[in-house]
Structures are given as structure tokens and as C-alpha cells.
């Protein structure tokens, strides 16, 4: 599904601030894989997502997605088949517009035409979809009036509506309170199972990373430290993960364990 070959990203090349953010990463994601990516702050998780989504170009290396070389493809064109949810709940929806207008924009990907697609039949359909997240009576309300959890749930719903081939979840529950985070996470699991989505999820929650999906990748200093899947992954524990991290990165427990929180 997704094949990264020798992908490298250097920020501010040729200046004193030069930083090697992604260091020669090779990664193969199979169709149907649900992969969690863990790692301390600054390990390159979000940069890797930005490179896959096309927010900025790679310094070197190639990316093949679904048989097509996407290395030079602009972000908006990659978004036709790759869905993405950000940590910030305000990024996925337009606050100045009603829920129904947001949904009609998400319904079909790509440049829009002069048709008025929003009709009562569509509104019925949206009401049914919105009943999943308890917003069925608020079609005409501006999205800016919703809470962070509701907005993130709506973003998730809108992403699923457009049936992407792969989804990138960038700590999408981190800004929510525990109860809302749970709701959004349950919805995520449900949608991934129902639509057999290929998913990559960044998280700081070690337990969630162990429980969720069939594959786990740990990153450190722009490299993939380890990559476990299937049977091996299901045997992982939080303690085991932290020990693995300590052994492989040659870093002391005290400095990094704090960043890899248990819950």
C-alpha cells in the first residue's frame, strides 16, 4: 500500500539550525495494516506524517502509494486518497460554516462544480450519519459552536464519508478529555473495522498503542527503532516496551520514560 524508500528530511539545510528530522527511513505498510507509531517528542513521528501527507517535500528518497510514485505530488492531490486527522480539533472543519455545509464539502473529494448538491435527501442521509455522534439535530448550526470532542468526531465522520484508501491519525484524541477521547477512539476503531481502512496512528499513550491495531513502530531521532506486528505485538506490555526502548536507544530510563506515558 505505502512504500517509503530511504526517505530523509533535513530542515533549514545549510544554516546553523540544520536539523536531520527523518534519517533514511524505509517503511512498508501493507493494505489493511493498522499501525501505531510511538516515540518521544522530537523523534520524527509528526514529520513522517507531514511527509506522507505532502505538507512539505522530502529532502531525499521516494514514496510509492498504491502503486503510484507520490514523492512530488502536491498535498491536495494526495488528500484525494489519504485522509488525515490532526491533533488540533479545529483543523479538520470550517468553523464559520454549518455542519451540513461542512459535510457537503467532504462528500466528494476534489474540485467542486456549480451544482447545488445539498438537498433534503442529503440532509436525511446526514442526519442518519450524525446520529452516530449525537449531532443529528444540529445540521444548520455553525461548527464553531461544537465542543472539541464533537468537532473531532465530525472530522472523523467526514473523513470516512469520502472513503479514503489510507488514514493518518496524528494524536487525534490528545487534545480531548478522557471521556471524549474514548468516544472518538471507539468511533475510530469502528470505522476502521467497518471500512477495512489502512491506518497509521501516532500516539503517546503506550497502552493504546499496544491495544490498538496489528502493528507497532517505535521511532527515535528520525529513525525507526523497532517494528513489531501480529503475534509478537500482542505479547507486548508497557514495561516491555519501555525496556525495549531503553535497550535499543541506549538512553537512560529516567529521561525518556516520562515521555512515553503509561496512560
Amino acid at each position, binding site marked *: 500500500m505505502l512504500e517509503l524508500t530511504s526517505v530523509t528530511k533535513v530542515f533549514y539545510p545549510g544554516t546553523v539550525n540544520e536539523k536531520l528530522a527523518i534519517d533514511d527511513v524505509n517503511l512498508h505498510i501493507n493494505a489493511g495494516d493498522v499501525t501505531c507509531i510511538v516515540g518521544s517528542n522530537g523523534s520524527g513521528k509528526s514529520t513522517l506524517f507531514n511527509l506522507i501527507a505532502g505538507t512539505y517535500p522530502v529532502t531525499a528518497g521516494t514514496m510509492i502509494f498504491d502503486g503510484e510514485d507520490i514523492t512530488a505530488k502536491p498535498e491536495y*492531490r494526495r*488528500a484525494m486518497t489519504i485522509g488525515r486527522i490532526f491533533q488540533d480539533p479545529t483543523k479538520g472543519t*470550517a468553523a464559520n460554516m454549518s455542519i451540513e455545509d461542512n459535510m457537503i*464539502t467532504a462528500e466528494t473529494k476534489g474540485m*467542486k462544480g456549480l451544482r*447545488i448538491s445539498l438537498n433534503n435527501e442529503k440532509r436525511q442521509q446526514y442526519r442518519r450519519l450524525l446520529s452516530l455522534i449525537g449531532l443529528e439535530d444540529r445540521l444548520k448550526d455553525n461548527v464553531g459552536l461544537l465542543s472539541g470532542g464533537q468537532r473531532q468526531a465530525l472530522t472523523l465522520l467526514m473523513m470516512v464519508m469520502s472513503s479514503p484508501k489510507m488514514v493518518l491519525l496524528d494524536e487525534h484524541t490528545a487534545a480531548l478529555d478522557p471521556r471524549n477521547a474514548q468516544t472518538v477512539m471507539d468511533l475510530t476503531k469502528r470505522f476502521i473495522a467497518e471500512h477495512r481502512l489502512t491506518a497509521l496512528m501516532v500516539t503517546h499513550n503506550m497502552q493504546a498503542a499496544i491495544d490498538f491495531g496489528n502493528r507497532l513502530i517505535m521511532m527515535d531521532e528520525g529513525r525507526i527503532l523497532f517494528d513489531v506486528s501480529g503475534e509478537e505485538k500482542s505479547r507486548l506490555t508497557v514495561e516491555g516496551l519501555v525496556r525495549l526502548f531503553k535497550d535499543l536507544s541506549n538512553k537512560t530510563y529516567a529521561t525518556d520514560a516520562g515521555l512515553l506515558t503509561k496512560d
Partner: protein
Amino acid sequence: MIEGIFVDGLVFSIMVIGILISYRILNFADLTCDGSVATGAAIATMAIVGGLPITVALLLSFLGGVAAGMVTAAIHNKLKIPGLLAGILTMTMLYSINLRILGNKANVPLLRVTTLYTKLPQYFSFLSPEWASLVGTLMVVLFVKVIVDLFFRADLGVSMGAMGGNEQMVISQGINPETLKLMGIGLSNGLIALSGGLLAQYQGFADANLGQGMVVQGLAAIMIGEFLFSSNRISLLTLRAIFGAIIYKALMFFGRKYGYLVNITPNDFKLLTGILVIASLFIAQGRSAASSAGAKRKAIARSQQRHDSEEDTTHA
């Protein structure tokens, strides 16, 4: 006299709708307006003086404005500079272009030629010439309003509104925001130039300096309109802009007529318009401060009440 204010306001309202599109819907602070309104006036004037039909002249004005807007959007998109600066660049360049269009003259009159405002009294011969102008202009404005309303309810227009609220969201939906800006700023300036084309015919001449300070006047009209009622429906946003434009022109009319009583001359109007915009912002700010102060009072009253009832139960 009263008809004059309305015609003036209605001609101006098409420009205000254009500014509404760039400032409020696309969230793009576009200063191209000061140049493109004069471009529209110049194109319409030269076309009519050259013997072209009025509809063709207005269509050319519109297209000239679209081109000007697209230049601004292209500068912004390709050179990654703020929209404000891109607009100033285009506006400055347009000043020279407008003089060229006018044949290197600063002012071209529309004398002894057929314009919309000599034809309208013939069409509506059962009305007085002033009312004929009013009815004709109203029809043009309503036509523009309905087209704009339909456009912003269509999928393309909705995605433009989404971009104004959140550019990342539009990218995530697989839409190139650069293309949306090219079309949106183009449409905005097309309407502004169309308004310029009508204005030239109404006042009977085109002037290279016509556009000076137009953006601020348009913003003043939008802000006046926003005091009337609040809504997120496009049909009401454009209606509000039209009302705001008429009220603004009425204020200017009375300023011109009775201003001498307080020693105000038309030379002071730009200052007054600026003060009007600042006052509008100030009042809007005051309103939101007042409503949060009200909420605070209620919250204090609520907690006081709760406190009192707790005390009652402990005493009992």
C-alpha cells in the same frame, strides 16, 4: 432626490458585494478594489464611447475586473506573499493601466452617447426619469445578488466559504486552494469593476482617481450592514451588504447637504469614513464586552443564590 440616494447606493452595493466576497467569505484582505473599480469605469466608458452596446461594455468591465483579481491571486499564490501586498501591487499597476485605457487622459466624459441612464427613462417611459433609473438599477442589483447567492450555495461556492474559514480543511478535501483563490478573487473584482462600469455611466464620466479609498468605503458599508441583523446565510449576507451600501450613501448625502452647518465639506469624507469604520469596530467590540459582562453578572447572581440556599439548609 431620494431616488438619487438609492441609485447611488445600489450601484455602490454591487461593489460592496464584491468586497464582501473577498473580505468576509474568502477572508482575503484584498486592496485590488481601489484599482479595479476604476478599471471597470474606464473599460465601460471607452467601450461606450467606441460605440459598443451597453451590455457588451458592462460585460467587458466585468471581465477586466476578473483579470485584475486573478493577477492579485496569482501573485499571492505563486510568490507566497500576503494577499494585502499582492493587492497593493496590482492596485498600483492598475493606475497606469487605467490611464492607458482612458487614452492617457485622467478623465473621459460620456457626453452625447447612449448610456444605461439615458436608455432607462426610454424603457420605463411611464415613470419619471429618476424612478426609471432606480427601477433599472434595482433590477441589475437583484440579478447580481441572485447569481451570487446561487453561486455560494453551489458546491464550488461552499468550498470557497470553507477555505475562508480553514484552508487546511479544503486541502484535506483534495481541493487546490490556489485555484479557489484565483476564481474567488476574480469574481470579487469582476463585480467591483461591474460596479465601476455602472458608476461611470451614472455620473457621466470615468476618472483614473475614481477608486481612491473605495475599499474603506466598502468596508464601512459592510460594517453598517452587520449592525442590522446577524446570519450565516449567504442570501442574508448579500442583502445586508446592499442595505449597508444604501445607508452609507444616505449618510454621505446628508453629510454633503447639511454638513456645512457643522463646517464639514466633502474634503472631510475620507476622514469621516475611516472614523465610521473605526467606530463600527469599536461598537462591535463594546457589544461583545457588554454581553460577556452580562454573563458575568448572571454567573455571580447564580453562585450567590446557590450559596444563600446552602446557608439556609445549614441553618435549618
